[in-house]
């Protein structure tokens, strides 16, 4: 985020900045909406219209907004009590395989969510109260998963490449 101040921004840094801001705003929104909903209900006898579905949509977007960064920063929970193989070459192969499993999982997820969003758009699924189009939302989830898959693939193939500007690529 501090990178925004510097002059030369790589595409990755811009993406990271945008995603961080999105995640932070969604997080704040989630908190604010709940508070407004409760206050509205008890003090003004008027809850936030569509509060339930807004909360649900905010949350799922929040979860996926963090996916590309958490994935490429290798912040997903991993158990590392078994020591790595000593041989550096085998170690590379091992870590490459581990990353590729992640890439495959995320790609399948993106593909399935993409299909689903097309189905939802065709049927015209909307939320019951505010009539928010669900197809569009799932399309965003698919896009974020695809972005996470691509970024992880880049990390796997070029260990020095990093989407995150703030944190240097750490090798653990």
């Amino acid at each position: 985020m501090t990178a925004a101040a510097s002059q030369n921004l790589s595409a990755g840094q811009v993406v990271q900045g945008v995603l961080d801001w999105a995640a932070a705003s969604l997080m704040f929104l989630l908190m604010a909406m709940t508070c407004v909903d409760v206050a509205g209900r008890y003090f003004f006898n008027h809850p936030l219209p569509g509060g339930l579905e807004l909360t649900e949509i905010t949350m799922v977007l929040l979860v996926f907004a963090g996916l590309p960064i958490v994935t490429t920063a290798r912040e997903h929970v991993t158990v590392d009590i078994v020591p790595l193989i000593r041989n550096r070459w085998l170690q590379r192969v091992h870590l490459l395989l581990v990353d590729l499993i992640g890439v495959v999982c995320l790609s399948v997820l993106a593909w399935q969510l993409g299909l689903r969003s097309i189905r939802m758009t065709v049927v015209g699924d909307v939320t019951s109260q505010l009539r928010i189009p669900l197809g569009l939302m799932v399309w965003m989830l698919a896009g974020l998963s695809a972005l996470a898959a691509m970024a992880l693939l880049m990390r796997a193939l070029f260990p020095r490449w990093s989407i995150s500007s703030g944190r240097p690529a750490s090798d653990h």
Partner: protein
Amino acid sequence: MENALIAFAVVLALIFARVPLVFAMSATGFAGLALELGTRPALAAISNTVIEAGMSYSLSVLPLFVLMGNFATRARLSEELYAASYAFIGHWRGGLASATVVACGGFGAICGSSIATAATMAKVAMPSMRRFGYSDSLATGAIAAGGTLGILIPPSVIMIIYGILTETSIGALFAAGLLPGVLALACYLAAVRLSTMIDPKAGPPGPRMNWADRLKTLRSVWGVLLLFAIVMGGMYGGVFTPTEAAGIGAGGAFLFALARRALSFRIAVDVLVESARTTTMMFAILIGALMFATYINYTGMPEALQHMVKQAGTAPLTVLLAIIGIYLILGCVLESISMVLLTVPVFFPLVTNLGYDPIWFGILVVCVVEISLITPPVGLNVYVLNSVLPDVSLRTIFRGVVPFVLGDIVRLAVLIAFPAVTLFLPNLLFK
């Protein structure tokens, strides 16, 4: 049953090969479903699981409690808690370690994560224990163990996950954690006593304070008390749902941090980003585990286990103790949330089928998770302390934790022998 066991073996193998838990669990679950049902339904299960878990209103309680804990940390509420408990019991033998444990318990009342509690208290309590010449092992042991109270004293991330997984009331689970939390505090204080009896130099007493000063420190913990009272009181009074309580708690902690000028715009954004990332991580393992659990349930393993137990005529208590034994072993190698997610879908039906109370079992699960957080080789709290205090070795911290683990085992035994300790409050409030 065999298939399920193979699946468990595959997941563990992948996890130990350093595949992130999300991918290990969801890939195995998917492969299992694809083999049993065909690729099409297995693929459909992916987007279903993700959307259902991601868009569940009841799960929004998780990010909100995480946020509340993070704002409370920034608001420096932990410092006042420590000052107050120090004023009251700092003059005991090992008093600073005891004060640390009590302050951890207090912070656990506004923070639902053990790791956050340990990390926060380390920064507050360690400097003064160093100043008074406390041994590193007693000091860090008290922080690591005290930190585990974060998930026993409500709010609690683990209780929320258990509640959602088993459709047990989160409010009742929170209420059930209170008395065991007090019991745990007592056990930890006894553990400090024990350590200082063995080695009096490890924990010299601090200065005694007069009552005027004590009451003054007490006045400054009103922030913590108020937050706790609003969140928990609102929930038990039936004013809030857990999600609403969490939202109000997060909002309250945010206002506190603002009022104390502990938040610049940048820091606030940092807290939000950090909480959002934690949310992504937690949901990732949650979704992975749900995928895996879908397959395990499909294999009929939970029913098969129940049938086996019934056939063998094993006494319920033996089964329960065996399960706890399995947890203690698993806890040595697995991370806490994933351990709960992987095992509860299998053990919960078995335990409730034997006639045990679901809320009581939930608290026992939380207790074994707490033990897993401080036992080697992967006691997460110990690692967190090691990263906050790089000059204290892992070995020293693990050594310091030993008396507290003994305390944990005593507590576990009491909770098993007297379910009333756990169930008194939830029965009073929710029935």
